[in-house]
């Protein structure tokens, strides 16, 4: 008794300490909330190597929003947007400017001998062909490239070069200073908006998104135009709103369902208040642990964390069902009858979740930490706080619940007596299900996208209009700017050698490496010495002596009229090893061939920038690891059950546990076209729950109170997890479906593991 009092004091002390810590972390800790699904998914090793380059190249772009407007009043609508967008806080217009050709020609003029197009390169040794090339350009009606460069570069190699280099980048055209793109004869005016806040919090995203959408709707209605838009901000806002709605709706519905169950089982307020108290403390423990171990809390963690209610309530049900025995045990200085199964159950569940703590998916680490600490809080509260509540030991089960339990036992005792038949039926069902719906996994992360269809459709339309829908992007990084340009040229040469039809978009033409410029300079000088340019120069009668080589450098380029393009395609950033340079290339029209992809994969300076497929690959690998983890967990479970309860009982317990896990997987496959990693994660939880049930049946036998507690647990868990099936986030609904099926399966299968039917206990009840 004295020991119990000491433990009570200890309980209050630790509760005080935990809450003080929580208060400190909440108000003084550095934490933030995230809602981007990609931020919590795993990254491949190559992605991690290139993450700094990726961040430097695309960070600013990720905060940009694109708006396309078409229709008779498109210009009016475009102007209205430019004016009214200033009313939306933290958003500004990022103007698209068209560089002046005169400035460009003047800028390139000192380096004019360093640039040769493929047409010039091909004909350098043929004076007549060179003259034809130049004549073709010179007779073109008002060719601005010729007009601007003929005086300084009469070989017209620069005119030809600039025309090719600039037209290669020109998906966007300009009219009256307004950028536009033509899509199947339809002109879309293009506006680019920049979100000006760094580290946008979720509520601000929702606010900005709502205001912008309202503005877009107003403009559509006023000007009768087609207006489409895209940007990460809109996806963040949608997923935030969705997650918030689900947390509140599912949370309240789960709580109401659980409270109704408690009321129907005990018909008194104290069990309700006790359950609420345990749930609150468990949630607080889980939340404080997240604040302690993580810098950011993902909203999806909270959606998954609703499941804590389902497991914690199990502890409450066991405590409430056995409440009347506690005083007796305390008076008789006996151990609490629940201590052993609850602690054993907690340890097995915690071990299951503990493995997930080290998962590369930060979402799972967060959920695991939340669950372990939440369950720990619930366990110690159930064991040390609930018995102290006044009137707790007088809690009794309602006659209705006892009758229900007795009927349940009667039903299950029949199953209990036909164990072999039940096991045979289970085996048959599993075989049939495997044949009918063979298990198929699909790791494509895009299938987990929870953005609404209308938003995805707009994104696709904008991507089509700006010609990047079916493009592939490469990131190139290097220690110096020249290395970066050389790697870029190596990549392009490699790809074009086998795929001449592919379109390459990048800064490579406008800024070749010094090495390449020197090669072209040498070739041009040699052709000139051989007199191959005489006919060309005769066309204009102008002279252009070739002076010493002068390279166009990266630094020169950044200060030139095309600096905006340079900043769009290149970046430099600090790393642990000093400054690094990165650029990106876009390939379109033809997909990169398997050979080229293989070559690129082996090149340490290049990474294919395809976040979706990178994450999908990582998810695939991680799924394999989880499958191994599941197999090991099942082996461990079998070993523990055999060791603890002997061969026969251990085997029956193992069949119930493994059988329910397999049923959950196969039935989930039957109800959905494919499985994903979240179905497997659900199986881990099922195993943890199944062990709890099996341990209780092993410890107490199939008797009224155990059956009642387990029934209430199963019903509450089914309600809590079942509701997740309705989540709009595919990850959450997959998880919910499998766990719900698993719980029903455990509920049906677990009694076959019971060591006996405790009829005397039945009689006493």
């Amino acid at each position, binding site marked *: 008794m004295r020991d119990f009092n000491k433990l009570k004091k200890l309980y209050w002390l630790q509760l005080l300490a935990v809450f003080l810590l929580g208060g400190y972390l909440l108000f003084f800790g550095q934490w933030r909330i995230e809602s981007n699904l990609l931020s919590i998914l795993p990254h491949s090793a190559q992605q991690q190597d290139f993450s700094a380059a990726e961040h430097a190249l695309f960070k600013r772009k990720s905060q940009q929003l694109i708006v396309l407007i078409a229709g008779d009043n498109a210009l009016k609508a475009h102007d209205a947007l430019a004016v009214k967008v200033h009313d939306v806080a933290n958003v500004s217009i990022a103007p698209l400017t068209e560089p002046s050709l005169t400035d460009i020609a003047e800028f390139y003029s000192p380096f004019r001998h360093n640039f040769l197009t493929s047409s010039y390169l091909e004909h350098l040794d043929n004076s007549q062909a060179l003259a034809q090339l130049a004549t073709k350009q010179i007779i073109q*009606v008002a060719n601005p490239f010729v007009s601007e460069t003929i005086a300084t570069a009469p070989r017209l190699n620069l005119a030809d070069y600039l025309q090719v280099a600039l037209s290669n980048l020109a998906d966007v*055209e300009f009219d009256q200073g307004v950028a536009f793109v033509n899509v199947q004869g339809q002109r879309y005016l293009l506006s680019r908006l920049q979100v000006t806040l760094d580290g946008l919090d979720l509520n601000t995203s929702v606010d900005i998104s709502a205001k912008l959408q309202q503005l877009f709707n107003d403009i559509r209605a006023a000007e009768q135009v087609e207006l489409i838009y895209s940007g990460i901000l809109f996806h963040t806002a949608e997923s935030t709103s969705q997650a918030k709605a689900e947390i509140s709706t599912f949370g309240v519905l789960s709580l109401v369902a659980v409270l109704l169950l408690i009321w129907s089982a005990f018909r008194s307020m104290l069990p309700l208040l006790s359950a609420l108290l345990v749930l609150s403390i468990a949630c607080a423990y889980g939340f404080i642990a997240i604040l302690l171990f993580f810098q950011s809390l993902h909203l999806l963690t909270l959606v998954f964390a609703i499941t804590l209610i389902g497991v914690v309530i199990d502890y409450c049900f066991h405590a409430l069902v056995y409440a009347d025995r506690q005083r007796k045990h305390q008076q008789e200085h006996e151990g609490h009858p629940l201590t052993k199964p609850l602690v054993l159950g907690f340890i097995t569940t915690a071990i299951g979740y503990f493995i997930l703590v080290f998962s590369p998916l930060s979402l799972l680490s967060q959920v695991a930490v939340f669950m372990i600490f939440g369950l720990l809080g619930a366990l110690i509260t159930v064991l040390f706080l609930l018995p102290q509540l006044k009137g707790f030991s007088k809690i009794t089960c309602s006659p209705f619940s006892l009758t229900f339990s007795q009927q349940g036992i009667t039903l299950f005792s029949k199953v209990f007596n036909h164990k072999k038949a039940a096991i045979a039926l289970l085996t048959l069902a599993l075989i049939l299900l495997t044949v009918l719906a063979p298990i198929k996994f699909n790791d494509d992360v895009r299938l987990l996208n929870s953005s609404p269809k209308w938003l995805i459709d707009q994104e696709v339309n904008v991507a089509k209009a700006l010609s990047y829908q079916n493009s592939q992007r490469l990131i190139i990084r290097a220690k110096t700017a020249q290395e970066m340009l050389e790697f870029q040229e190596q990549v392009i040469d490699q790809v074009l050698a086998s795929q001449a039809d592919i379109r390459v978009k990048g800064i490579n033409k406008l800024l070749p490496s010094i090495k390449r410029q020197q090669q072209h300079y040498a070739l041009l000088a040699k052709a000139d010495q051989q007199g191959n340019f005489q006919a060309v120069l005769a066309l204009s009668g102008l002279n252009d002596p070739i002076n010493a080589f002068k390279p166009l450098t990266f630094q020169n380029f950044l200060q030139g009229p095309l600096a905006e393009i340079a900043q769009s395609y290149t970046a430099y950033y600090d790393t642990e090893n000093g400054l690094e340079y990165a650029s990106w290339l876009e390939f379109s029209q033809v997909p990169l061939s398997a050979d080229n992809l293989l070559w690129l994969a082996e090149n340490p300076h290049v990474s294919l920038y395809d976040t979706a497929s990178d994450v999908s690959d990582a998810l695939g690998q991680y799924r394999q690891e989880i499958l191994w983890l599941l197999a090991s967990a099942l082996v461990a479970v079998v070993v523990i059950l055999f060791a603890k309860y002997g061969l026969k009982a251990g085997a029956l317990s193992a069949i119930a546990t493994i059988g329910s896990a397999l049923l959950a997987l196969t039935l989930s496959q039957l109800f959905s076209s494919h499985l994903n990693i979240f179905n497997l994660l659900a199986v881990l939880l099922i195993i943890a729950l199944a062990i709890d049930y099996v341990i209780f049946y092993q410890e107490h036998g199939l008797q009224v109170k155990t059956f009642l507690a387990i029934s209430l647990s199963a019903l509450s868990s089914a309600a809590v997890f079942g509701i997740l099936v309705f989540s709009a986030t595919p990850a959450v609904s997959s998880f919910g479906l499998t766990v719900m099926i698993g719980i029903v399966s455990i509920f049906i299968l677990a009694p076959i593991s019971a060591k006996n039917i405790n009829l005397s206990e039945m009689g006493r009840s």
Partner: protein
Amino acid sequence: MIHLERINAIAVMLLMVAICFSAGAFAESHQHEQSKILALSAVPIASGSFVQRKYFKVLKHPIKSQGELYFDVSIGLLWQTEQPIYSALLLKKSGLFTENDNGDSQEIKSASAISQVLLDIMSGDSEKLAKNFTINASAIDHCLSLTPKLTQLAKIIDNVQLCHIDTPEKNQQNLNDINHIILHEHSGNRTEITLQLTPMTMLPEAVRARLQ
């Protein structure tokens, strides 16, 4: 007296209302007037020949080229240089293309504006020209001066002169037919094009196929 003052006040108000209305209508009527000044003969489909002289500030002599042209406003323009070398420029619905001797075509992005202007001039699309240019009388007889309104054009061309020059070989001309075009560039360079057009009801099938 009071009666007269009221009448005056009403008259002033009516005048103001009239000014407001007419200001709104001004832009439209001005454009209409401009297109009337042009009053070009509409030639939706035609073939013909051209002689082009390019005058570069830095060159003493112009660079001369000549060739054939075909257009149908509904499908596009073929501008085919025969002398001094063969080259073909095709303005299609889908953009501007060059064609080499083998018939392989390559798109020239963001460069269709000038070709479109030529097509508008030759086909006599006064409305479109009035929309895209400010039209004034030229110091030269039988010529009009067009200043681009569109930035895209204004960046390349300073001014376009459309002229009717009486030549010995008249092609069913009247004063509304344009047969001489001068494109003045900002750089001081200019392109002079002399045209000889024959209206048609349909382009030859081979040309239509190239423009499709």
